[in-house]
C-alpha cells in the first residue's frame, strides 16, 4: 500500500478531530459516528492493523474508510509538520486497496460503475449533459477566453443546474468571454480519485486533458470546487496545465465594476467554505469579497469558518454514497444549526454539492422559515435584478 511506511507515526492524539479553536468536533465522520475508529487516527491505526494481519477487510472497515469526507480538517490541524501533508494520501491509498480487493460499500461500487458505464454518477445518458444550459443561449466553446466547466452535479442535479445557470448568466451579463462544452463535457474525476479508483481517475484526467488541449482551452472557470481542485492540482500530473479559476475568483475580479441595489434592510449572510476551495486550495477571501461588495449584506461568520470550517459531509464521494447522511449528528445538519445559531438568514455556498447537502439538512432540521441556502451567483443576481429600480427583499 502506498504510504504504508508512515502509518505507525500517528499517535491518535486527536488534534485532527477538532478545529483550531477546539469549539466542537470538526472531523465529519467522527462527528457522525463518534467511535474512535471513524477518526483520522483510528483509520491510520486500522490500516496498519490491516497490513499487519491483525484485522481483515470487512464491510465495517470499508464504511470506516469511505466515510472520510476528504475535507482536509485533519491535514489542517494535525500538529506534526510534514507528516500531516500525507494524511489524505494515506486514506486514499487505503481506499485504493479496498477498491482493488473489491471490498467497497455498495454505494461506492454503484458510483464507480455508473462513472465507468455512463460517464456520470447519475447513470443518465451523456447526451443530456448540456441540458442545464437550455434556453440560456450560451455559446459552445470555440476560442473564447474561458471554458466554463460545469461538472456532473451542475449538469445533472436540479439544484446544481440552478447554480450553473446562475453563474453562466452572470458571466454573460458581465461580458466575460466564455464557452461551454455542453454534451461534450466529461466528469472531472475528482470523486473517483478520492474514492481510491486511481486508474479510472487517470483515464478520465487524460481524456479531459486531451479534449481541452484539442479545443485550444487555456483558461477554465469551474462551477464546482471539486473540479477546480482536480483540474488545478491533479491534471498537471497528466500533462494538463491550465489556468484554472473557481467562479468566485472571477466574480471577485468583476464585482468592483458592479453596481448593486440597496436592500431594504441588512441581510444577514454567513458563508460556508467549501473544503476543496478553502482548506484544499486556501481560497477563503474571494467569496467573502464578493459578498462584502454587495450593499446591505451583513457578513457574519460561524464559529467554524475558513480553515476551521465544518464540511457539509459531501466530500470524498460522500455526496453520492451518503455514508455521512442521516441523524442529528450528520455534518450537514450540524452545519445548518450552526448557521441558524449565528442568526444568518442566508447560508451562502459556492459549491453545488454543499448547496444540495445543506438544503436537505435545513428541511431535516425544519429551519426553512429562518434559513435559506443561496449560491454566491444567486445572491449577486438577486441584487442585480432589483438594481433597477427599487430595493430588494430576499
Amino acid at each position, binding site marked *: 500500500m502506498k504510504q504504508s511506511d508512515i502509518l505507525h507515526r500517528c499517535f491518535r*492524539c486527536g488534534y485532527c478531530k477538532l478545529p483550531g479553536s*477546539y469549539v466542537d468536533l470538526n472531523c465529519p465522520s467522527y462527528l457522525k459516528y463518534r467511535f474512535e475508529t471513524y477518526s483520522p487516527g483510528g483509520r491510520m491505526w486500522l490500516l496498519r492493523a490491516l497490513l499487519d494481519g491483525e484485522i481483515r477487510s470487512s464491510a465495517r472497515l470499508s464504511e470506516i474508510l469511505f466515510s472520510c469526507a476528504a475535507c482536509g480538517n485533519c491535514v489542517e490541524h494535525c500538529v506534526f509538520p510534514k507528516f500531516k501533508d500525507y494524511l489524505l494520501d494515506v486514506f486514499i491509498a487505503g481506499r485504493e486497496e479496498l477498491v482493488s480487493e473489491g471490498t467497497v460499500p455498495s454505494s461506492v461500487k454503484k458510483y464507480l460503475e455508473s462513472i465507468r458505464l455512463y460517464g456520470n454518477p447519475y447513470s443518465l445518458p451523456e447526451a443530456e449533459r448540456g441540458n442545464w444550459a437550455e434556453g440560456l443561449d450560451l455559446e459552445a466553446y470555440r476560442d473564447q477566453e474561458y471554458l466554463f466547466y460545469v461538472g456532473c452535479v451542475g449538469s445533472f442535479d436540479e439544484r446544481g443546474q440552478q447554480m450553473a445557470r446562475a453563474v453562466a448568466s452572470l458571466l454573460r451579463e458581465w461580458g466575460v468571454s466564455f464557452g461551454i462544452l455542453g454534451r461534450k463535457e466529461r466528469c472531472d474525476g475528482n470523486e473517483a480519485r478520492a474514492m481510491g479508483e486511481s486508474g479510472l481517475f487517470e483515464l478520465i484526467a487524460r481524456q479531459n486533458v486531451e479534449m481541452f488541449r484539442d479545443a485550444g482551452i487555456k483558461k477554465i472557470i469551474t462551477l464546482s470546487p471539486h473540479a477546480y481542485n482536480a483540474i488545478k492540482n491533479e491534471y498537471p500530473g497528466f500533462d494538463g496545465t491550465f489556468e484554472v479559476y473557481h467562479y468566485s475568483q472571477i466574480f471577485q475580479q468583476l464585482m468592483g465594476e458592479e453596481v448593486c441595489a440597496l436592500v431594504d434592510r441588512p441581510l444577514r449572510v454567513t458563508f460556508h467554505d467549501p473544503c476543496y476551495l478553502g482548506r484544499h486550495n486556501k481560497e477563503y477571501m474571494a467569496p467573502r469579497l464578493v459578498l462584502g461588495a454587495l450593499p446591505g449584506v451583513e457578513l457574519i461568520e460561524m464559529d467554524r469558518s475558513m480553515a476551521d470550517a465544518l464540511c457539509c459531509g459531501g466530500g470524498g464521494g460522500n455526496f453520492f454514497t451518503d455514508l455521512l447522511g442521516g441523524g442529528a449528528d450528520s455534518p450537514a445538519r450540524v452545519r445548518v444549526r450552526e448557521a441558524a445559531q449565528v442568526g444568518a438568514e442566508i447560508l451562502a455556498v459556492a459549491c453545488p454539492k454543499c448547496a444540495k447537502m445543506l438544503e436537505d439538512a435545513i428541511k431535516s432540521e425544519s429551519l426553512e422559515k429562518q434559513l435559506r441556502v443561496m449560491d454566491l451567483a444567486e445572491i449577486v443576481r438577486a441584487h442585480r435584478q432589483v438594481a433597477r429600480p427599487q430595493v430588494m427583499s430576499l
Partner: protein
Amino acid sequence: MEEIYKELVNIVGQSYVSNHAEERFIYSRDMGTMEPSYPDFVVMPNSTEEVQKIILLANKMEIPIVPMGGGLTLSGICRPLKGGIVLDMKRMNRIIEVNETSSYVLVEAGASQGMLQAYLKKHYPGLKHSMPDAPPIATIAGNVLIHGSGHLSAAGGFHSEMLNGLEAVLPTGDVVRVGSCSTSPYWFSRSPLPDLSGLFLGWMGTTGVVTKLAIKLFPNLPFNDVRIFLTDEPELIPDILHRLARVQVAEDIVAAMAPRPDWLRGLQMLIINYGAESEKELTLKREMLRESVRKYIDEKVGGFMPIPPDMKRSFLEVPQSSISRFADLKKGGGFEYVGAIMPIELFPDAYRNGIDIAESHGMTYSLGARIIGLGHSMMFFFAYPFNRADAEDVNNAQKALEDTNEMVLEIGGIPWKAEAPAQKQIIRKMCPNTFALMNRLRAVLDPKGIMNPGNWEVD
C-alpha cells in the same frame, strides 16, 4: 453475548454499540507500551439514565465495564483487562452550566478540555479552567479523576482539588451526587459535607462511572507573560522552586530538562507563567519573581534568560501543541511517561536517576516537572518516546518505564495514573491496611467486581 448485544442496542441504539473487530481493535490499546486487551463491546451512552441501564445490565450479566474519556492517559488504564464493555463517554459532552459569580462550570463527563476552553473564551472571556498539557480532545472528567494537573496548578493544585462535586452511577446502578450538589441546587463546593468524592478520585474507574462534574474556574487575566529561570545545579532546584512558588505570582511552574537542543544540555529550565489585570501589575509580578530568587542571581548560579518571541508564543499557548511534537522525537507514534507525584525536595534524585535510567536503556533523557500548589508537591515526569514499528524500541521503553516506577517508589514518590503492573508495584509499598480498606470499600460498592477489573489488584 448475543443477548447482551441486543440489550445494549435497546439502551443506546444500534449506531452506538459495536462488537466489530475494528472497534474491538482500537479500544484494546492506547499509544503507550501496554499490551492490548480486547473489549467484547464498545458502547457510547448519551445520558446518565443510559449509563445506569448499562451498569444494571452488566450487573445482571456479570460482565466488566470500563469507562473511558479521551483515552489519552498513555498508561493503558482504559484497556479492558478482563474484556467486557468499554463505555466511551464522549457523546456526553454537554456544558450544562457556568456560574460566573461563584466561578464554576458543570459539565458532562465526556466534555473535552478544548471544547470548554473555547466555550469560556466565547461566552465568559473573564474565566478559564486549568488545562492539562494533554491534547485538547482529552476529557475534563478523565483528567480530574486521575488527579491530573495543568496550567493553573501552581495557583489551584491538582485538578482533583478543583473539583466541586460530581454525579456518578455506582456499580450497583444507583445514581449518587457528592459535594454541595447532593444537598443544594448549586455545585459550589465539596465542603462542608463528608467528602465522598474520594471514592472516585484515583480509583481508575473501579468504583463507578462519573457522569457529571463541576470544577472551579479562575480569572482569565488580560495580561500574560512567561519567564524562564536557568541553572545547571539540580541541588538548588528545590529551594528555587520553593522561593518562586511562595511569592504566589505564578499560575504555572514547569521544569524541563533534555539534552536537545544542545544549549539546553545539562541545564534545568524553570518556566514560570503568570498573569495580571494590568501591565503595571505584570511588571510588579515580574519583579517579585526576580526578587524571590535574587540570592541565586547574585551568586551567579542561575538567572532569567531572554526569551525569543516565537519561544514565548509557544510557552504562552494553552495547551502547548509543541508537547505533542516533542513526543514525536522518535518519529514513531509511541509515547509514554512516568509522571510521579513527589515532594519538591526529591528533584535532584529524580533528575539524576532519570538520566541514569534513560542512558541505561539507550534512550535520550527527557525530564520535567510541574509544580503543584505553592511548591506543596510536584509531578515529575520521565518521558520515553518510542517507535511503535520497532518491537525492540517498544520493549526498551517498557523496561525503562518499569525501572522508573521502581526508582520513584524507592526515593519516596508515587507513580501517577500508573499502568496495571505499576499499580502492583505501588500496592507492594502501600500500607497493607490501606490496601485492605480499598478492597473493603470496593466490595461494598461493587459486590460483583464489574468495574474495570484488573486495576488496583494484586495477582
